[in-house]
């Protein structure tokens, strides 16, 4: 990433946090404006609504121009040249927007970057094997991995990290020892990602990307050790040249059963010890999946009753955990609190409405000033203080 982009991102993190502090009532308007002055925004940005529109219209324009080039110059669709030409042209356009035009979060530069990578993948697939179907999956995954990784490194967009992670593990699955390689890669990647996610030497976009890669690695690890995936030979069946006739190696089955049961608990324990939210969330979700796996093999009760029981347990656990955390000294235990610290989301009302209508998630209630977290540490003092908390 460009030095000026990284610097702007670091400043934006501070401004976003300051706005969250203000929304939660921890600082006053004067303090917020002093922080914004100290960490100014030197990039040209759009808000969410404009960003969506700019992304949509830029995508429409780019696809129309690419389509126009196909109509006017009648190139051969089985030739990589035209795809690579447009990939390079759009990469250059993205660079101009992010560099001299100083655009960030503008939607347009995201659209050109995304389409550049997509066309690059098509070009790569054709360039390394022509229009034949032989090895198509491997060529798609290899092109996607290389280009997404390059896009993630250069532009830091989250989608590229996700694409690089998924295609990387997808490539490993294509090998003879896909399952083993997935396990080894995930075990190496998870600690590396969580370490990178907290390293100040990395750009904020790369830190967020490391979290995404870590999440992909966690899912890949669970999928690779899961007993059902083992029994169904899921990983092996995903290989383009694999044979589904391979039998299960019996000595390792019990290990898979043990890992399916213990891995979620391990993530929960690690998440608690390291105070890492993603590991905790992963542990909770995977615990649910492991419980569901038990029912897959042993139908202990009707599904309806099982769901009602799980629902009651979730509600009970949520209420108990909150009460237990709040009963700790200063409303926290081992560095965890049940209360929202700072609401740093910038979701608009429309998103809240759509989410509420699409499911039945109760929307957040208005939080009055200074009620988000009560640390019991006395009263604020110093510049910009707003009273006790």
């Amino acid at each position, binding site marked *: 990433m460009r030095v000026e982009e990284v610097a702007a991102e670091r400043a934006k993190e501070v401004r976003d946090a300051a706005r969250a502090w203000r929304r939660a009532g921890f600082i006053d308007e004067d303090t917020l404006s002093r922080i914004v002055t100290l960490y100014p925004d030197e990039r040209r*940005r759009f808000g969410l609504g404009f960003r969506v529109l700019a992304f949509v219209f830029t995508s429409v324009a780019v696809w129309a121009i690419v389509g126009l080039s196909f109509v006017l110059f009648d190139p051969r669709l089985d030739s990589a040249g035209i795809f690579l030409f447009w990939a390079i042209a759009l990469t250059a356009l993205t660079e101009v927007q992010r560099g001299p035009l100083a655009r960030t979060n503008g939607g347009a530069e995201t659209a050109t970057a995304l389409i550049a990578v997509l066309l690059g993948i098509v070009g790569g697939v054709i360039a390394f094997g022509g229009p034949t179907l032989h090895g198509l999956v491997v060529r798609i995954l290899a092109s996607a991995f290389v280009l997404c990784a390059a896009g993630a490194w250069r532009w830091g967009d989250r989608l590229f990290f996700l694409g690089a992670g998924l295609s990387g593990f997808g490539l490993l699955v294509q090998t003879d020892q896909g399952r083993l390689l997935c396990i080894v890669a995930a075990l190496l990647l998870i600690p590396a990602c969580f370490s990178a996610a907290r390293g100040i030497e990395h750009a904020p976009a790369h830190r967020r990307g490391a979290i995404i890669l870590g999440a992909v690695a966690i899912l890949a690890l669970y999928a690779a050790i899961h007993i059902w995936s083992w029994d169904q030979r899921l990983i092996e069946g995903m290989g383009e040249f694999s044979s589904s006739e391979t039998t299960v190696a019996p000595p390792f089955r019990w290990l898979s059963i043990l890992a399916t049961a213990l891995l979620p608990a391990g993530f929960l324990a690690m998440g608690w010890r390291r105070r890492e939210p993603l590991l905790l*969330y992963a542990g909770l979700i995977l615990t649910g999946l492991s419980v569901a796996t038990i029912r897959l093999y042993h139908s202990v009760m009707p599904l309806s009753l099982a769901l*009602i029981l799980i629902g009651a347990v979730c*509600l009970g656990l949520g209420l108990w955990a909150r009460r237990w955390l709040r009963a700790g000294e200063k409303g926290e235990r081992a560095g965890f609190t049940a209360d*929202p610290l700072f609401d740093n989301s910038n979701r608009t009302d429309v998103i809240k*409405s759509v989410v509420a209508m699409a499911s039945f998630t109760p929307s957040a209630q208005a939080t009055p000033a200074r009620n988000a977290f009560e640390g019991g540490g006395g*009263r604020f*003092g*110093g510049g910009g203080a707003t009273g006790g908390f």
Partner: protein
Amino acid sequence: MISPDLAAAVNRLEEEDVLGPEQVRLFGRVARGELVSLSVALHGLLYLGVVALTSGVGLLFRNEIANLGPLSIAAGVGAAAALCLAWVARRSPPFSAGEVRSPHFAFDYVLALGALLAAADLAFVEGQFSPLGESWAFHLLLVSLGYAAAAFRFDSRTLFALSLTTFTAWRGVAATSVERAVFGFFGDTDAVRLNALACGLAFVAIGRALVGRNLKAHFEPTATHLGWLLILQAIAWGIDDGPTAALHRLTLVAVGGGLAWFAWRGGRFALFVFGVLAAYLGLMIALAEAVDETTVMLLLVAVSAIALVFGLGAIHRLFPKEAEE
């Protein structure tokens, strides 16, 4: 937010005398990851609990009738719904026309659970015993009114949104029978489309009335957004359909453009997006119909989209910066 950059910035802000020691202590702990909130996880657990419970009850209705009997299932689920709603009624503060702070961490979830269980129970009773007979669709209206009453009494935007969508569903289901009986000249599709349009207009009017009367004014965006989505959808439904297609396209361009204009002037961000997208869709479909040549069409699409991107850049300067971040 865990962020080493923020941790460093907090130290700098302390040196610059912008933040006080207590602020620095709290913000620094959060930025360094020494204090982590589990609020999202706990809310996620409650949400999951409500989803699992309602799904389980849905399956119970379907699979366990033979074992338990419809009456005992209906009574059991009804009792569970009543328990939830009774707890909510006991914990709820008195009615207020303004926004009310949730009295308990689980309040919204128990309210949603109770309302959903009651609605599911009503549907089950209707399915099993058919008390409404031919007018079975009216149970959706009952559910919608029930949701609305609970939404206003307990200040729940979720139930208000559910009330509006259930009302729309009732009109969608009822349209094919009622309107056809009264207005024989309507086809099924026309009836549903006109109902969607009427619902949209009604919701926009409800939104304005809520603000005008200062009654739960914070529900207004929900009603207005859903209303405009229905209006635009009802118009867009006809852009590719029969002799009135051209009129629908023109209407979509005009209504979308008008909505974008008024939303821009009023600073209504989401409505501006709805309006621009609708107008552009109408314009493009109209162009595609008018221009036969693929090359010209692609050129027009590209030029118009690029013009819009630049137009957005120009309009953007007129919106306040705070609204964007």
